[in-house]
């Protein structure tokens, strides 16, 4: 689905990511751990194709196509979607209208918002005066409308209070097609048919209660250190810290 092959990234003339190798297979969800300022957001922005993130070495492919230099909106059209850590405010544009613009299938913004208890924010300008948790909901709302095949989530649960975390978790599980919907379908069958893939950045690990992640990684100082069982990594980081964890896993 998504392959990064020796990708090195520069931001504002400074090398931030070094020689990243990563493969996300169809139906897989990966989790990224790592301390602040280590390059997690940079990695997702690079995959999505933002202009300030220059790939100086290596290549990226998505759905079998080389996307290393493909413009941002074309990647979105190919089914990539991202929820941002700190999205900009867009004055005069109602959240309702943006959700409608995002929606390929003409989904009803009202109905999508209801799922997130977000109806009363639909008539606000996009991200205008929203709290941290509300921003996450607004981002998820747009992603629900987009319904991407490759879901990139940058700290989707930070700032979300305990009351709302389940709501947010369930929506993410659904975006990734990880929700158990058909009781009469064996899980193993459902898993085979699953097409949606994702990369989730998380600090708290909360999200892993709602989404069964398949692979975990740690990024440290711009290097992607290992691919392992996400639960194991998370508990290792919890016990020994990132540095120690990277050392013991390698």
């Amino acid at each position, binding site marked *: 689905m998504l392959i990064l092959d020796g990708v090195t990234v520069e931001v504002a003339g400074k090398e931030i990511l070094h020689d990243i190798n990563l493969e996300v297979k169809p139906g897989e969800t990966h989790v990224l751990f790592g301390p602040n300022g280590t390059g997690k957001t940079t990695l997702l922005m690079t995959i*999505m194709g933002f202009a300030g993130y220059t790939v100086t070495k290596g290549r990226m492919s998505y759905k079998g196509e080389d996307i290393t230099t493909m413009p*941002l*909106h074309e990647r979105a059209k190919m089914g990539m*979607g991202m929820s941002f850590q700190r999205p900009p405010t867009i004055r*005069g*544009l109602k959240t309702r209208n*943006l959700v409608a613009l995002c929606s390929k299938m003409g989904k009803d913004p009202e109905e999508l918002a209801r799922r997130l208890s977000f109806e009363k924010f639909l008539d606000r300008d996009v991200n205008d005066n929203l709290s941290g948790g509300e921003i996450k909901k607004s981002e998820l709302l747009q992603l629900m409308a987009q319904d991407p095949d490759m879901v990139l989530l940058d700290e989707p649960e930070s700032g979300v209070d305990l009351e709302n975390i389940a709501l947010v978790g369930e929506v993410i599980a659904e975006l990734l097609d990880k929700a158990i919907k058909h009781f009469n379908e064996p899980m193993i069958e459902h898993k085979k048919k699953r097409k949606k893939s994702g990369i989730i950045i998380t600090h708290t690990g909360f999200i892993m209660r709602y989404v069964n992640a398949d692979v975990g990684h740690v990024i440290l100082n711009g290097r992607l250190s290992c691919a392992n069982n996400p639960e194991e990594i998370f508990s290792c980081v919890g016990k020994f810290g990132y540095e120690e964890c990277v050392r013991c896993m390698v």
Partner: protein
Amino acid sequence: MHGLKEKAEKALNKKAAVGRDIDLNIYRTGTPESNATGLAELCETDLLSAGIVPSGEGRSGSYIQEDHSVTHCNMTQKGVEISSIEEALKKYDWLKDYWWKALAVDTDKYTAFTELQPRRGYFMRVAAGQKTVYPLQACLYMEEEGVLQSVHNVVIAEEGSEMNIITGCTTASSLHSGLHLGVSEFFVKKGAKITFTMIHNWKEDVVVRPRTGVVVEEGGVFISNYVSLKPVKDLQSFPTAYLNGDNAVARFSSILVAPEGSWLDTGARVYLNGRGSRSEIISRTISNGGTIIARGHLIGNAEEIKAHLECNGLILTERGIIHAIPELEGRLRGVDMSHEAAVGKIAQEEIEYLMSRGLSEEEATATIVRGFLNVEIEGLPPELKQEIDRAIEESEKDIF
């Protein structure tokens, strides 16, 4: 009204405080014709794009003036008057107590010149406690090439009344050059409210010099919206409002687009003289190669006043000028005044954010500009908001 003519004569060569000096002699003045073409023959689409409904449907009254002649005037609601100023001056002796009271006749050569011309323009008045069901509409239509159209309008909202007005100044498709001088005096009595929305479609060679004075009494509200999205050679206006009563309110908003070759110098000045009075001056301007000077001057003369100025400008073309001149003048302790001005291009971050949702760069830009022009105006009736939205939608192809 004695002495006014003399004052006007003396001020005929008085240059305006700001703006390029215009030679009035190169334009053609005229006298009202008896054989005006009539409403039916005015181009319907010209009127509609300025928010004017030729049939008068959905309006509580209409006034339409073509060059120098009143071609249409009617009213449909009791307690709501709309007529030519000439008629009103004949009918009401007391009208002289309002004549040049919100604005001095010798302000500059344009006010002076207008006073010396035959009386044209409209008179609107809503009786105490009455409210316009539908907006009143006035259209000043310029048709003859090189015409000088001058008007003097008086609008009075009696105590506790409420009126919505939409004015469309527009020109015949065939007209290229002309000069429009528009003197307007507004009187908002105690507890009354006037919402005045102007959608103006000028032309590449048209020069415009509106001169406006507004007097607001206790608890009165004056809301002005000015929309100019089409080319105009040279427009300079600086309406002044006097909030004389306690808790009076004035809000001026403008949405301006300056294509290449256009020059718009506009803004508003508000004297906050009444205790607790409030004012807001907001502009959203776009230069597509033209020049915009966005002025604002707030003068805080009383306790507990609150005033805010906001000038936001986008330059969409390689070259273009937006010059914001916000002025705050507090004259005693206890005033609360602020301003905010930003001029530049669209933030790349915003464009990319929308592109990540699948919009192309052009679509993202258009969406952001549309949002930029979508000003929330407190207290603006929805039907007037609709007219503004429609005007913007129609002009989109020219803006982007």
